[in-house]
């Protein structure tokens, strides 16, 4: 914890996976930001000629709905990132709260919370999400999709955080803090948070990637709002218009490749950060080099 932010970053960049992931993510975020300068509303049809191959005017061509593929992709990345950020952040709040209370309080509240958490781990979550999405299909938008995924995405990480709190509780400084009269809230926010924040962050990346994949899956099944361009709905429209059969690769492969880059970037970043956080694998990595 003593290391400064700058040296942490420098250490992380020595891992090629982190460097590649960082650059990829920067590019994708730039693309998402560019959507704010788009010439057309992405939900409108026929703002361009239909089914054009890539050209100077439309660098990725146009869709059968008369939309520019490049600008659709910019909006899709932006909305997918927003959905996953909502899902990730809200579920982190739940996971940290559950993990802290269960781990610190122990006893009955621990048992009840862990029973609920295990329940979430054992039931076929995906099917339950599908069922809920079906019921609120008319009200699905960026926020409800994000919240729906948040409600189901915290259980595993709550367990991880609880395990960390359990080990912190047994350490010397907890007893020192309690004996010197610090209140629970103060103890948790001052002493525990520095240990829990990195965990919350590294699980956040994984969770965001899960949420993006989940959104794509729900879109393919037809359970999200098809008017909002996301990676999932963009792909679904391409499939609906038989873009594979018609070999309109510029249309189908854009969301496919973008999502592959996004997933690889998020995954490599999370692996790199969690290896950095876990000294055991760090020793092994340094030993290899």
């Amino acid at each position, binding site marked *: 914890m003593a290391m400064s932010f700058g040296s942490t970053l420098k250490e992380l960049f020595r891992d090629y*996976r982190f460097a590649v992931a960082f650059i990829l993510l920067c590019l994708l975020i730039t693309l998402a930001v560019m959507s704010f300068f788009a010439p057309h509303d992405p939900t409108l049809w026929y703002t361009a000629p239909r089914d054009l191959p890539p050209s100077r005017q439309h660098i990725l061509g146009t869709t059968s709905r008369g939309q520019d593929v490049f600008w659709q992709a910019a909006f899709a990345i932006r909305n997918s990132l927003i959905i996953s950020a909502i899902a990730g952040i809200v579920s982190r709040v739940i996971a940290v709260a559950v993990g802290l209370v269960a781990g610190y309080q122990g006893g009955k509240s621990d048992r009840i919370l862990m*029973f609920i958490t*295990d*329940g979430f781990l*054992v*039931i*076929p*979550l*995906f*099917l*339950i999400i*599908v*069922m*809920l999405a*079906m*019921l*609120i299909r*008319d009200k699905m938008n960026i926020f409800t999709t994000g919240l729906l995924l948040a409600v189901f995405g915290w259980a595993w990480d709550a367990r991880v955080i609880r395990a960390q709190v359990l080990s912190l509780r047994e350490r010397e400084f907890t007893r020192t803090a309690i004996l010197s009269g610090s209140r629970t809230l103060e103890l948790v926010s001052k002493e525990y948070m520095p240990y829990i924040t990195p965990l919350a962050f590294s699980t956040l990346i994984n969770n965001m*990637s899960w949420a*993006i*994949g989940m959104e*794509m*899956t729900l879109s*393919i*099944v*037809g*359970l999200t709002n098809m008017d909002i361009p996301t990676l999932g709905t963009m*792909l679904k429209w391409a499939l609906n218009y038989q873009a*594979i*059969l018609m*070999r309109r690769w510029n249309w*189908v492969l854009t969301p*496919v490749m973008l*999502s*592959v880059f996004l*997933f*690889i970037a*998020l*995954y*490599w970043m999370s*692996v790199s950060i969690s290896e950095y956080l876990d000294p*055991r694998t760090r020793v*092994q990595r340094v030993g*290899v080099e």
Partner: protein
Amino acid sequence: MFIKNYLIPRLLQYFLVIFLGITIVFFIPRLAPTNPVERTIAEIRSRGTYLDPRFVQDMVDALTEMYGLSGSWLDQYKDFWVRLSKGDFGVSFFQFPTPVITLIKRALPWTVGLLFTTTVFSWVFGNIVGGMAGYAYNRRWSKALDLLVMLIRPIPYYVFALGLLILFGYVYRKFPIAGGATIGATPSFTLSYILDVLRHSALPAMSLAILGAASWFQTSKLIVQNVNAEDFVQYAQLGGVREGRIIFRYVIRNAMLPQITNLALSLGQILSGALITEIVFSYPGVGHLLYSAISTGDYNLIMGIISLSIVAITTLVLIVDLIYPLFDPRIRYK
């Protein structure tokens, strides 16, 4: 002692989880703002069918009865359990009037055949290769394999399956792109029919096996790297035990233990996993059935499939927990 301290609490937990899971499945549709009966009628109307107002009330009554929505919630809830215990999930709506259970029974062999085989295969394959790569973690082939897996692993299943379908179904037309067998072929135990089924399962099986094996590879490699550092492995190395024997009898055997629990969990997820596979490759299993149920709003069918998969998962996990001591002689339930 085993029975009192371990078996009974474990069984209690088992029944409690099933009870809660199925209760959730019961309540979700009832808490929703729209009710399935209204929804069904709206859907029939939106298809352009004219409904005579006199018959609408009759339809509402009939649908309410069929969905098990008559009476108070408590009555419905009791009725739901009574029907469930008989394996009766009501009749399907999109293939009216076939009972849900018949539809599931018809689709289940396809799903189990495809997903069970690939899950077990990728578990064995991924663990062995991952174990060897973890043991020789600083060899070149191990690092190359690691990079390959790092590229494949994060791709969500749907995108990966679609990629394979485009590549081998459309660009190089190597395999059939849809179905479980050639349309019109009569199921029989002849060589040609079996080959036909295998050819149709090639792409879905490949997509499941590659991604599955990649994920098992990683976990197994990680566990093995930790086992490597244990004293008994180093002792065996110093004592000149053959490398193959160390890998399989010392390292992988120990690393397998946590993977057995994971295998049970992933076998339990078969029914959810089937959904996407079977949509992409139009495979005639439970996942495809669920998809049709979702797109037609067939609540009885959806609830039937979800309830069954809750029972399947919890039972598998229970069985694995109970037979675990067979694999790990260190565990004794005291």
